[in-house]
């Protein structure tokens, strides 16, 4: 059953269009991430759902009921803000009770809910603290507890982890995901962090310039990007402009790459995508077991944690990034060496 339906949602400001004709259906219990660069319209969309921004056109409905004109305090959804937005003059308990009082939840039920969310978020020991006596991660958990106590139909997350340090952010992702699954609550999560979106979401909606660029599971988005933008935005991409022929791709600089049979892409001038981690690299002359290959000179070899990244300059002047598991020996792949780069047909993709 669909829970939240956005149809032809549009928001324009004098001179700019923030969101253009957005259609999206979110199922009960689903966690959907809006992913995109700054200014792509993801936050505007979230704020329209929350009721803080009035759409220029289109509608928002929840459980079949049109809520487009409903003020924020009448919508049954909890929002977790980037700045936590806790009430600084109230303790953790008072912060959580605030919403329960607004919704006129009777005392006994409210106390039960308070205990339950404090336990869920591991805040029981901190319940009498004021926000400024707590760390960022703890504050964010209070913000989450505060909305969970209301048992809303929908949870909205507005880049909730971007003010936390890297380690804590990774931990919180998993915590949020676990809580969301346990409670089974439909959620919308806005982020510009692809890793965060991949970890947390059932479905990712990639947005660019106010439009949905692609939507799908994290794997679909990564393995089958529909457009250059998505291929480029998610992960690392080698993208070649040029022309696709039968079994071949001729790059704009005149290099012919063997690619086997390619699935056609939409759009008039598709680009060729080769993911760096799908490429195989070996010193020239060594045996290669991939059907397609090209050669070039290793211009740069950089260690990225457990990976080696090679920048291979091709004879046409174009370049390829190749990732390889780092091993104790260099395998003869050092800067200045000529190397063979190979790939399989299924690893080459055309994108619009």
């Amino acid at each position, binding site marked *: 059953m669909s829970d939240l339906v956005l149809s032809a949602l549009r928001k324009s400001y004098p001179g700019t269009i923030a969101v253009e004709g957005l259609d999206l259906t979110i199922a009960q219990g689903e966690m959907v991430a809006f992913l995109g660069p700054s200014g792509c319209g993801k936050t505007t969309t979230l704020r329209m759902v929350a009721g803080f921004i009035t759409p220029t056109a289109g509608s928002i409905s929840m459980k079949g009921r049109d809520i487009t004109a409903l003020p924020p305090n009448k919508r049954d959804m*909890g929002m977790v803000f980037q700045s936590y937005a806790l009430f600084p003059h109230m303790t953790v308990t008072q912060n959580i009770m605030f919403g329960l009082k607004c919704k006129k939840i009777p005392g006994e039920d409210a106390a039960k809910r308070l205990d339950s969310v404090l336990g869920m978020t591991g805040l029981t020991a901190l319940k009498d603290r004021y926000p400024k006596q707590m760390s960022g991660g703890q504050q964010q958990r209070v913000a989450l507890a505060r909305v969970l106590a*209301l048992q809303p139909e929908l949870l909205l997350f507005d880049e909730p982890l971007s*003010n936390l340090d890297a380690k804590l952010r990774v931990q919180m992702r998993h915590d949020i995901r676990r809580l969301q699954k346990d409670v089974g609550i439909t959620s919308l999560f806005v982020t510009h962090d692809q890793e965060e979106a991949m970890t947390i979401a059932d479905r990712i909606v990639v947005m660019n310039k106010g439009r949905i660029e692609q939507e799908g599971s994290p794997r679909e988005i990564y393995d089958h990007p529909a457009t250059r933008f998505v291929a*480029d935005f998610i992960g690392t991409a080698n993208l070649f402009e040029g022309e696709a022929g039968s079994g071949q791709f001729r790059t704009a600089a005149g290099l012919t790459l063997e690619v086997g049979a390619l699935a056609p892409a939409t759009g008039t001038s598709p680009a060729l995508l080769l993911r760096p981690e799908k490429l195989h690299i070996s010193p020239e002359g060594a045996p290669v077991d991939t059907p397609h290959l090209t050669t070039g000179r290793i211009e740069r070899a950089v260690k990225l944690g457990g990976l080696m990244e090679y920048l291979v300059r091709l004879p046409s002047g174009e370049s*390829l990034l190749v990732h390889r598991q780092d091993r104790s020996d260099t395998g003869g792949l050092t800067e200045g060496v000529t190397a063979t780069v190979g790939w399989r047909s299924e690893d080459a993709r055309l994108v619009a």
Partner: protein
Amino acid sequence: MHSSIHQTQLAEGATARDRAAPKAPPGPIWFTVPNLVFMGLFLLGAMLVLIDVSLRVYEAGGAGVTDQRTLQNYADFLLDPYFLQIVWRSVVMAVTVVLATLVLGLPLAIGLSRTTGIWRALLYFAVLAPLLTSVVVRTFGWMMLLSNNGVINSTLRELEIIRLPIRMMYQMTGVDIVMTHVHLPFMVLALDAALLNINPQVYEAARNLGAGATRIFFRITLPLCMPGIVAGSILVFALAISSFVTPALIGGPRNPVIAMVIYQQGVSLLNWPFGAAMSIGLMVLLVAIMMLFLKLTSRAAQRAS
């Protein structure tokens, strides 16, 4: 596209900003020296002289300020119902002005704090504009409005709303009205500063949690702007209770406030010791009221800051 290949790694996620406001290192202590010297000479020094004078015996028509010391000046001031009544009138006036500027200033400050760009600049200027005219000129302006044949009363009579004029001149009513006008900017600026300190997402969070406008005002806005309410109230109270020109011109000699009797003793009667004793008394009263007020509000203000 010029380059036929592009590789891009968009690792935007690694932009964890540290939101903790950077604190300025404490400046070298000698930066405060010029100020300390100035204050030491002209505030502390002058105060010591004032205390000294307040303890002298005054001989009217004879030696004037003598070398003899006494506490009689303080006793004369504190035990005389006439002067206590003046102190009471001054305190009531100052408290009235604080409450009036608070009630009028809060909506104005909320509006100001939520306005941005050119509109904020214009509104800010409008709030400050009364301070650009001299207090004397401004008070005379008010006299033209408030007098029995002034603009307000004659208009009301023209409209046949009243037959007899509403007496505002030479009444504390008139003093309260004009003092409120004069001191409103100080209150608004103090409140505006406190309101700007509130994270706007806090209001959104409150609405998201189901709070209506009334609840947000009383449970969020008001407690969170406590530091501004405290600062503005103290500022306006201190300015109002020591004001001279406006009460003298609007209230007239029949409604004296403390500053007027101090002036009278010091300048007209040349009884400097008694004037000094009243000045010290006013200062002690002011400090005592402020301390009491701060004590009452400190917990709320601390939590909100």
